[in-house]
């Protein structure tokens, strides 16, 4: 048994907050009604769904009517992109995205390409930033959608979303932002941003897995992805996941409170402690992503000469949960498309490590990582044939 358990993989998923679970409980027990039923069981479920929708809306400064609840962030991304593609195909068939999107965006765009849509994939610089000039140049008469992520899951870089929206909307093009990693962690205000579509996912912000949302600005037309009974204002059919939605609502309330209380600043301080500790203690460590415009809980680094999966498993043996963009963690051959798009060479990309902090992360946790990680890296380097000339 490891001396300590330190979970630093909050970008992958977060634990359910205790208060979120408490809010969900009754809906997993006696309040089991279908919100579409007219009887008392149904009405109490409907009320809970409505209230939760209002909480989620409040978190991003939207109207409740603009929040479409889905079965997760990936589904919301698919709804935003395919929903736009099918609704606007009469107007044009060109979509713009970036090289560092989540697969829920990239693979959706690629599928549409097979259905006859055209795709432009914007490059990013070495910090993971999209260029506004590139975006502006890519917009054409037939462009119906710009879909770019708010903040990146692998390297934490926050895009210049305000300028992205402004640039696209100046030319009358709809904008979707994948906000899965951002919402609940940094202030996001859809009125201020003026984006058309924004993806949220509950389990990235201390809510339950399997529930997400798409913000759809009033007046923005989409084809549904899931047709049927007409739930969610006709945009996402299916019996509502009441317990999950109530959990999402409670998580939104929690996030609102944390943002107001500045709890995120403490996370950011610990993240800096971690990043500085890594670069101080470990030679040949390269922090990835933007130095300033990054998620407050997000540290990512590439180490020369060693491979990510072996780092993860050695860290895991010491009780530390982390992740990597190494090909070996995904079973594919290519390492993370995000790191490669940022110009990081293949062999270095294989040595990537992501440590993402959460609301319960303590300074002791960080100090523990800073004790374990240097030894893991040096042990694995000792096993490696690479870089031996340097040591």
């Amino acid at each position, binding site marked *: 048994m490891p001396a300590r358990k330190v979970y630093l993989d909050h970008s992958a998923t977060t634990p359910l907050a205790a208060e979120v679970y408490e809010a969900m409980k009754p809906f997993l027990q006696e309040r089991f009604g279908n919100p579409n039923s007219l009887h008392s069981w149904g009405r109490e479920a409907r009320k809970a769904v409505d209230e939760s929708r209002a909480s989620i809306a409040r978190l991003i400064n939207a109207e409740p009517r603009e929040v479409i609840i889905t079965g997760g962030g990936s589904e919301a991304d698919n709804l935003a992109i395919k929903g736009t593609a099918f609704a606007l195909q009469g107007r044009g068939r060109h979509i713009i995205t970036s090289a560092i999107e989540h697969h829920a965006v990239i693979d959706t765009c690629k599928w549409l390409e097979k259905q006859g849509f055209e795709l432009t994939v914007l490059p990013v610089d070495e910090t993971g930033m999209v260029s506004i000039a590139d975006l502006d140049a890519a917009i054409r008469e037939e462009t119906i959608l710009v879909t770019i992520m708010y903040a990146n899951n692998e390297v934490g870089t926050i895009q210049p979303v305000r300028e992205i929206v402004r640039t696209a909307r100046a030319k009358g093009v709809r904008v979707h932002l994948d906000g899965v990693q951002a919402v609940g962690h940094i202030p996001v205000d859809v009125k201020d941003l003026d984006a058309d579509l924004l993806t949220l996912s509950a389990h990235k912000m201390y809510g339950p897995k399997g529930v997400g949302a798409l913000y759809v600005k009033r007046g923005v037309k989409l084809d549904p992805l899931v047709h049927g009974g007409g739930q969610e204002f006709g945009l996402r059919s299916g019996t509502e996941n009441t317990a999950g939605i109530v959990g999402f609502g409670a998580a939104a309330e929690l996030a609102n409170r944390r943002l107001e209380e500045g709890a995120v600043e403490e996370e950011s301080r610990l993240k800096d402690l971690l990043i500085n500790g890594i670069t101080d203690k470990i030679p040949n460590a390269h922090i990835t992503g933007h130095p300033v415009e990054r998620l407050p809980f997000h540290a990512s680094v590439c180490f020369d*000469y*060693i*491979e*990510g*999966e*072996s780092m993860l*498993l*050695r860290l895991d*043996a010491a009780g530390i949960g982390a992740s990597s963009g*190494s*090909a*070996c963690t995904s*079973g*594919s*051959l290519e*390492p993370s498309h995000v790191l490669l798009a940022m110009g990081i060479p*293949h*062999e270095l990309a*294989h040595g990537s490590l992501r440590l993402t902090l959460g609301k319960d992360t303590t300074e002791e946790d960080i100090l523990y990582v800073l004790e374990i990680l240097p030894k893991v890296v040096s042990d694995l380097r*000792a*096993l*490696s*044939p*690479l870089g*031996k000339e340097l040591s």
Partner: protein
Amino acid sequence: MYSEKVIELFMNPKNAGRIDNPDGVGQVGNPQCGDIMKIYIKVKDDRIEDISFETFGCASAIASSSMVTEMVKGKTLDEALKVSNKDVMEELGGLPPQKIHCSLLAEEGIKAAIEDYRKKAGIK
């Protein structure tokens, strides 16, 4: 995902490191793909007297390296050449499908080291 044996060997690999003045060295894999295995051998009377490895790669690459070096140590070169990736996998208690190439690398590493030895020794 990994067998206990794989994890054990990955955490505490045997025969890791370099041998001084090896009689043969084989290197397989490439850093682009995230796997390099380097095998060092000492040969005496046509037998692998000593062997070690250095590996850049995932847990199963490291475990496969360690396992294959244990398996061929003390064997004649011809016996060592008969050790296949299947044998390595079996001894490891299996590997996930997407990791089978690691055991192949181990088989190839031994072959490359022996070839290098024979080339240097002028043996055809």
